């Protein structure tokens, strides 16, 4: 095959993602030949699963020490010198959540959904900029989607005219039906009259 044919085949936009997927898939195979292994010296390490549950901690998988508003919890971040209030959000639990925590031993599993706690510390404070970007990405996607639908998908027909046309059709339809009914009535009356006579 000549190289010009290959270029021409590549010029079809539909083929590009397929080709890209194929190349990426083949590249992933290389991953099985590369020696992999987890470096155990990680940031923000955590206890093995179930260890904290067996210790009976109320905030089971996410207990990182510290008292709310009294002492900070333990956060092993990359640059503690740039985060002066490190660990305070980690140990904070809102009063409402503290009440729930006194009732249930499983509060820790819903730590995502209450202000305070380890995940909030990472998402809002030490890696806050990631969340800024993440919410910006979501915002941009919504701007694109809603712009498209407001300006095209939704307004694809002129609404008020469309309704007017619909109403006209409906009126003429009902007129038609009414006249049919009337004519049928007249026919029936005539038949009745003939029989009577």
């Amino acid at each position, binding site marked *: 095959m000549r190289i010009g044919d290959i*270029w021409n085949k590549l010029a079809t*936009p539909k083929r590009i993602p397929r080709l890209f997927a194929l190349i990426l898939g083949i*590249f992933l195979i290389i991953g099985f030949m590369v020696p992999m292994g987890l470096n155990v010296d*990680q*940031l923000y390490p955590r206890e093995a699963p179930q260890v904290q549950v067996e210790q009976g901690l109320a905030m089971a998988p996410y207990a990182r020490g510290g008292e709310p508003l009294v002492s900070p919890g333990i956060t092993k971040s*990359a*640059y503690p010198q740039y985060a002066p209030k490190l660990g305070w959000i980690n140990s904070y639990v809102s009063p409402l959540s503290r009440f729930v925590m006194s009732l249930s031993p499983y509060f820790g599993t819903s730590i995502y959904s209450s202000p305070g706690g380890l995940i909030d510390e990472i998402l809002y404070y030490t890696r806050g900029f990631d969340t800024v970007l993440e919410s*910006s*990405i979501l915002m941009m996607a919504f701007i694109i989607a809603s712009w498209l639908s407001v300006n095209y998908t939704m307004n694809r027909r002129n609404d008020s005219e469309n309704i007017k046309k619909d109403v006209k059709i409906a009126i003429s339809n009902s007129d038609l039906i009414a006249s049919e009914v009337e004519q049928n009535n007249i026919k029936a009356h005539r038949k009745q009259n003939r029989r009577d006579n």
Partner: protein
Amino acid sequence: MSLASLGGNLLGIVPLGDIVFYLNPLHLFLFVAILIFTFLIAISHTETQVEAEFGTLGDKKQSVGLKEFKARRFLSVICGIATAGAMITGDLYNFTLFMSLVGILNIGIISSVKQIGVLDSVFQYGLIAMMCSLPLFGGAAIVLGACGTVSLLAIQSMKPTAMMIFGAIMLFIGVCGESGIAPFFASKAEMFRTPGSPFLLIVHLSSLFIIIRAIEIVLIICT
């Protein structure tokens, strides 16, 4: 390889918790250049294309409406700022997020065009951008698993392992797909035959700048 041998001496850092932006002469130049381009694009107007019609002597004007113009200008200014941010960030995961932001904005800038061919191209581009979340974030996660950190300031002094190189190359494939430069040029050429050219320029510019930065990051990790 150390940061200094690639981009010059460290001029300063902007710490935001774990995410540290750092400035050296190369990054500063790229940062300022993309901001100047963004400013130029923000004050420019769209061009109007004139197409000759077949069969008649008439011409057809393809202009951009005010609403479309405003939406596109907004998206391209944000795209410029996001590219500028990606130039100075010193955190691998932060860079991938900047990359995704630039990718989705590129899609948005082109998606407001009304021609079917362009919409088809942008959809295919979007498919590549979606697939690229695996090499982008996955590559960053593999580097995290191998190094224990995603901060480039810490990674620069580490000795590269095969796993780190694999992660870095995976990340680079992701960046290539997300900004869709050279290998996917055929697809891009289809997209650029549209009215409203200055805003489409930022798509080219951002992919150019991002690729330069991505090569620098890959070199920092791999050598």
